[in-house]
């Protein structure tokens, strides 16, 4: 999988018109251009360069950034923890809030609660995340002045947990709109499906209380498909991080990707894409494992 991803990105970037050599500025002489081309190994054919890159990547060397001359891996390493923290929190929030909302919606099907929650989740799917972020800043930073509008921490101040948390609140909420509505919608439909099954009617018929039936019998079975959708949400969250980080000036992978795109920093773009894909593939593997653990009927293929 990773091989395909890296090959797609690498070849796309290197075969395109105005490929990496176009990055050279206008003021360099032909000789300098020649020297730079050789230094970056750009005089080799693309497949050869891919194999060289691949050999390096297997040893943990993703090449050198063209804009800052630092190793790509270092630049990614600086930013990755921030993005993981933000996405992890947003995913946790989506699960912790989304599953109960989905259950509530399913249990009150067709009632006002259900309509409100369903409309809200559709709204969450439709609102541009960056605009939602801007509106939050407008409300809580500009008007009410409760929360800081950007960054990971107040510059110049000593480390304080409270300060860090305040900086995390709005980005986490904004990023979770990439996942929360889907969790709610999915939990709702999974619950409704399970609640319609015969064994639920049997459980109710033999006199078990509604609570026992809902949480003991229905929820456990409904959670199986919900876990699979959570795996599919990880790419969405990481993608959503690009926009969220831009709105809140959050120094993470998303902003790095935007900077790399603006600076036409090809090795960095390839490195970011591969690292992100690796993370996504790793989490989907973990989700598969969790899946077999929860539902022993499923065997790993």
């Amino acid at each position: 999988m990773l091989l395909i991803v890296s090959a797609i990105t690498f070849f796309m970037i290197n075969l395109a018109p105005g490929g990496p050599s176009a990055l050279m500025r206008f003021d360099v002489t032909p000789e300098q251009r020649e020297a730079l081309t050789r230094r970056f190994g750009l005089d080799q054919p693309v497949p050869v360069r891919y194999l060289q890159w691949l050999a390096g990547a297997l040893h943990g060397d993703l090449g050198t950034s063209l804009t800052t001359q630092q190793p790509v891996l270092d630049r990614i390493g600086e930013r990755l923890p921030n993005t993981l923290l933000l996405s992890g929190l947003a995913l946790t929030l989506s699960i912790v809030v989304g599953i109960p909302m989905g259950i509530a919606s399913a249990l009150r099907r067709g009632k006002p609660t259900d309509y409100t929650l369903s409309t809200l989740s559709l709204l969450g799917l439709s609102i541009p995340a960056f605009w939602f972020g801007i509106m939050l800043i407008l409300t809580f930073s500009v008007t009410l002045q409760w929360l800081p509008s950007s960054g990971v921490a107040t510059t110049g101040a000593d480390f304080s947990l409270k300060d860090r948390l305040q900086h995390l609140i709005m980005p986490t909420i904004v990023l979770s709109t990439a996942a929360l509505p889907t969790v709610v919608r999915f939990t709702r439909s999974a619950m409704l499906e399970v609640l319609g099954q015969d064994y639920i009617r049997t459980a109710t018929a033999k006199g078990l209380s509604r609570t026992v039936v809902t949480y003991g019998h229905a929820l456990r079975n409904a959670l199986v498909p919900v876990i699979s959708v959570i795996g599919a949400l990880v790419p969405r969250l990481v993608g959503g991080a690009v926009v969220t980080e831009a709105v809140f000036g959050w120094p993470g992978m998303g902003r790095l990707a935007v900077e790399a795109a603006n600076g036409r920093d090809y090795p960095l773009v390839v490195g970011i894409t591969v690292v992100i894909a690796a993370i996504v593939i790793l989490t989907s593997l973990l989700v598969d494992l969790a899946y077999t653990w929860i539902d022993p009927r499923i065997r790993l293929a």
Partner: protein
Amino acid sequence: MTPRARHGAWYRLVRQPLPCASLVLLVALHLAVVLGPRVWTISPQATDPINALLDPSPEHPLGTDELGRDELARMLQGGQVSLVVGFCAMLTSIVLGLLVGALAGFYGGVASAILMRVTDAMLAIPGLFLILAAVTVFGANPVTIILIIGATSWMAVARVIFGETLRWKATEFVQAAQALGASGPYVLARHILPQTTASVVVSATLGVGIAILTESALSYLGLGIQPPTASWGNMLQNAQQYMFTAPALAVYPGVVVTVVVLAYNFLGDGLRDALDPRL
């Protein structure tokens, strides 16, 4: 689908209040964006620095932006750009998804395995990262933006069509057509693809909304539609800088994007219910 069934689907659609209202709203908005600039003839590009960041007035019903450009004219132009990009990107993604899904599903074999592997690989890369990588290479102008958004969003459609093609390929009437000597492309075009109409229409409707969201996010990041051409996304990028002095500029484009995307989502859900009564 017989004319009668189509009539039935239309009937089921207009009986649902929200999708129906969404349809009316979308038609009205598209008309406004197309006809608006003929009625409201102020140029969206004409700058007037003395009258920058004005509050709404009869001359400028939505006020002016940081360069004194008329906000209403820019909203209309931005709407044209955003809606056209959204629609064309959706078309690109549907065509690609149909091609990949139908060919992989119908012919099977090694080619199919490769196509679906590529689909999975592309699904594993978070959309915006893929789009940023593509923009780095191909640059940002309306045509490349359309193609890039289309080329990075066909995977879901391909999977749906792949599944449906497999399902219909196994049905008796398709096997009968093949037994009678119909060629592969003919069976695919005449017997299998028409069965997928409902899925395609629903995916297309939801796809426009998603493409508009993607375009606005990309333009907001400064990697989409480039100024001075207005799009709802890049208008928000500018507005964020003037949030303290002119908060209203940050409100209009966002509200319109949200309403349009919400309407497409309601319409898509409504169409799914109307076209596929089994669900």
